[in-house]
């Protein structure tokens, strides 16, 4: 029965969106961390989503399309250097390197992820109701 598949599909999206919320939380938490070299500086992380075709019996037309997280990429934006000679992490020239996290981008990302999570949860709730009503059919 195809209503069962909805739980798998929306569930895959829920886990993908919660991973996105997770990376956002990690980015926001590390927005102000500093390090002594540009290589060690924290870089913003983003998950990459892809559609997975779960073809039933090799039929691409009837495929369920779940979401898969292909991986997590680090932002290539340049890290900022700040002159803080009193910071214990400062290098020989007195500079520390901050993360390249853009808090505004992260906030927008967080709202988008939580909205997507909500809409998928709504799909699951509705499907659950439909299934329970189907079970009570003819009573």
């Amino acid at each position, binding site marked *: *029965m*195809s*209503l069962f*598949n*909805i739980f798998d*599909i*929306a569930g*895959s*999206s829920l886990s*993908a*969106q919660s991973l*996105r919320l997770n990376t956002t939380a990690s980015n926001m938490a590390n927005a102000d961390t500093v390090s002594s070299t540009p290589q060690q500086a924290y870089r913003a992380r983003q998950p*990459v*989503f*892809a*559609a997975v075709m779960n073809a039933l019996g090799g039929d691409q*037309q*009837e495929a*369920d*399309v*779940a*979401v898969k997280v292909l991986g997590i990429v680090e932002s290539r934006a340049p890290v900022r250097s700040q002159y803080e000679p009193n910071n214990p992490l400062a290098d020989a020239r007195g500079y520390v390197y901050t993360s390249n996290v853009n808090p505004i981008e992260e906030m927008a990302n967080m709202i*988008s*992820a939580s*909205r*997507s999570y909500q*809409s*998928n949860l*709504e*799909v699951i709730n*509705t*499907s659950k*109701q*439909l299934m329970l*009503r*189907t079970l009570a*059919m*003819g*009573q």
Partner: protein
Amino acid sequence: MPINIDSALGIHADALALRSRRAEVLANNLANADTPRYKARDFDFKSALAQAQGQSPINSVRLVTTQSGHIAANAGASRIDAELQYRIPSQPSLDGNTVDTQIEQAEFTQNAIQYQTSLTFLSGKIRGLLTAIRGD
């Protein structure tokens, strides 16, 4: 007169199966609202229902078998076999995704209500049959 359960239930059994199929397709779209290059899909309910009822689908061209050796083009296809089509996006996004969450959500809700409608009709038919069987 023997009672044929299939004909007694009428169009509603097919409609219910198609509604649940459509709920699945729309859930696919909503799940992939943030996936780059994903194209939103849906199917034409009217022609799919006509096909499930054994009529030729509206506005469609089918291969005709003219000789005994020919194999039907849709051989082995299930009764609930809706042809998926891509939605025409009103606002395509830069990453190639054509899902409009609001439209899909509205369609999903509408579909859920129509599913419940079919379910109510079906329940009524089953109750009617049960009354006939029990005779009280």
